[in-house]
């Protein structure tokens, strides 16, 4: 069994009000390390056996068509060991 991870993030130029809210909550709790926070989505997809190049290409396609909205989001597909 292998796990394919798709990380979806808002494009840098798109306003992220949720990330901003987290960024302003951190210092209130005494965490002063952050200069900015962006919030995204992570999909964990399990498959049987090691992923083939064809399967990864299918996941890429699904990430583009369904998991992300290319108008506002970028995605990265990777295999987690």
């Amino acid at each position: 069994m292998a796990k394919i991870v798709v990380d979806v993030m808002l494009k840098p130029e798109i306003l992220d009000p949720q990330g901003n809210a987290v960024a302003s909550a951190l210092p209130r709790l005494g965490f002063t390390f952050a200069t900015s926070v962006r919030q995204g989505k992570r999909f964990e997809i399990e498959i049987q056996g090691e992923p083939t190049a064809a399967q990864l290409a299918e996941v890429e396609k699904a990430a583009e068509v369904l998991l992300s909205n290319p108008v506002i989001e970028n995605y990265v597909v990777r295999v987690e060991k």
Partner: protein
Amino acid sequence: MRVGVITFPGTLDDRDAARAVVVGGAQAVSLWHGDADLKGVDAVVLPGGFSYGDYLRCGAISRFAPVMQLVIEAANKGMPVLGICNGFQVLCESHLLPGALTRNSDLHFLCRDQEIEVVNNQTPWTNSFKQGEKIVIPLKNGEGSFQCDDQTLAMLESKGRVIARYVGENPNGSRNLIAGISNAQGNVVGLMPHPEHAINELTGPSSQGLGFFTSILHAMVK
């Protein structure tokens, strides 16, 4: 004149939309998300709500509903389609309209009476209004901030494809105060605020929302 109103699981405003269609003078035809038939309608309204629970992204799952494949095909052939609120989000996810609707800039779900200006009265959904007419209809959404890249924004503005703008302070962070846009042909219109909740002063802030539903009748009988 038959106007379809689509119900997805989680749609809220289909009954008000159907009633607005009827008060506007057309026949309302209920369509179900799983339908593989548009039942011969002349136009379609995608009402507001939380289709498929807004899972993944607002409108992202609805786009792949069986009935939407028919709506997309018909819209590309010129059938008038109005997407209100969640319906607007579905139209963007379906790529019938450019851009995307994102979380309100202040993160709050807004529910209030909102003044908007109709800035293009040449579409089948806005021809009952005067150019520049200001109307008050409810705005109620959490993800109503219209976003697109600079190039798309410039194109929408230069082609007159912004059909309505918020008046006064920007309620949700939408670029250029955009409350509604159309496709290149003008037959597909997306609108964030809710005209179907403003067709009678007894139950809404005005009856000015009715103009969207009388417009479609005018457009079809022309």
